[in-house]
């Protein structure tokens, strides 16, 4: 639903926005080239402009949906001094970079004792990325290689330090669970899920969290599930409505989070994961696919 702030920009507003943005880009190009050049290669101009939009917190032109947010943000900026707003944005990027570096250090310090190469390489690469992070011109780029995939991916609409921060936040949530469970059992589940888990690009959280949710539902000890227990789950959900499956798993997530005393963010992450598991259970229950989902 549109309102005064979110309705599409008028032609006059669009023109004013273009003028103010162009003036800011001229300024950034001058700074970037140390006042040596009034023109830059198009690729550099695109990245400088993306940097400006990042600092001003204007979403990049959306393909669909999101236009309302963009219009609202631009409309708010039209009455502002964009150079001031850009400076605020640069300070914000610097602050967020410092906060994210602190988060990275915490994640590294609290890693579960699982020797997965892609996880360690990813964290090492992210750590190096902070040295090169440019909060003057290109805040939308954080140069690092993220090979380790999370069970819940980070939105691609997030850029630069925002993406890295969200990635590390999700990773911290995953590791929170992994470190609170008996390590021998965690390894056993991961081993059953993927024997070459040390070398391959596999997510360690998903098989462990799925089994932990199932164990919470079924009761009993240990993380590994027997074939009989997986069959019991299949029978439980065979004819259940999707809402029942989701409710079962969300209830299990809440219980597990409370039992393990997970931080709130990790608890919310686990609930999000439970919803995904519920969707996969619904899709797989008819073809005996639960044996791949739970191990």
């Amino acid at each position, binding site marked *: 639903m549109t309102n005064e702030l979110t309705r599409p920009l008028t032609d006059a507003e669009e023109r004013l926005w273009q003028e103010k943005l162009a003036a800011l880009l001229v300024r950034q190009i001058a700074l970037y080239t140390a006042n*040596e050049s*009034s023109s830059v290669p198009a690729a550099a101009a695109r990245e400088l402009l993306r940097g400006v939009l990042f600092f001003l917190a204007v979403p990049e032109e959306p393909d669909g949906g999101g236009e309302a947010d963009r219009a609202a943000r631009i409309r708010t900026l039209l009455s502002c001094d964009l150079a001031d707003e850009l400076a605020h944005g640069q300070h914000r990027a610097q602050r967020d970079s410092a906060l994210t570096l602190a988060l990275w250090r915490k994640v590294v310090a609290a890693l579960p004792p699982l020797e997965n190469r892609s996880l360690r390489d990813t964290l090492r690469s992210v750590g190096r990325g902070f040295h090169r992070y440019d909060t003057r011109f290109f805040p939308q780029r954080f140069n690092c290689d993220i090979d380790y995939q999370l069970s819940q991916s980070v939105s691609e609409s997030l850029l630069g330090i925002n993406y890295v921060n969200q990635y590390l936040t999700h990773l911290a949530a995953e590791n929170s669970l992994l470190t609170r469970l008996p390590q021998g059992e965690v390894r056993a589940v991961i081993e059953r899920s993927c024997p070459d888990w040390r070398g391959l690009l596999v997510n360690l959280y998903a098989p462990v969290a799925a089994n932990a949710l199932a164990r919470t539902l079924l009761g009993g000890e240990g993380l590994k599930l027997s074939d009989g227990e997986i069959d019991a789950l299949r029978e439980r959900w065979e004819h259940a409505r999707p809402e029942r499956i989701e409710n079962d798993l969300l209830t299990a997530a809440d219980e597990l989070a409370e039992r393990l005393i997970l931080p709130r963010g990790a608890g919310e992450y686990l609930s999000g994961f439970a919803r995904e598991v519920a969707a996969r259970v619904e899709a797989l229950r008819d073809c005996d696919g639960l044996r791949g989902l739970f191990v």
Partner: protein
Amino acid sequence: MNELTRFGALSAQRTEAALLRGNAVTERFGLTLTPEQCGRLLARRASALRETERIEPGEGILPKLAVALCDSPCVGPENWEEALGGLTELFYHFKGACGERLGDDELLSALVRLYNGWAGGCADRIADLDGRAILRFARTGRVGDDDE
């Protein structure tokens, strides 16, 4: 990035205004630009920027070039527009060909000196040079083995 393509129109307006203001300087040498000539020069500029894949969101180099070139012994009212258009195209070409190593003022000065001297008012002769030659000329005043 739709904004970048829209900046061209804004930039053209500002550049045209600056060129017409610049007539106050260049007319002392009998050189002025009409609005129609400005329009044609801006079109050449836009085309040159597209071909060299460059973006220039502000007034850009044209007004500066007009002031730098207006006292040239090689220009007159009959070739004023062509001289500006040709050197503008060369300017954007050599910005890239010189690996972005020459600032605007350096490159502009080099091109004007070449045009007035070694090239004898023939922009095509300058177009035959490569980026290294322009860099060398900008730094040493020499074109190849010839003195400038």
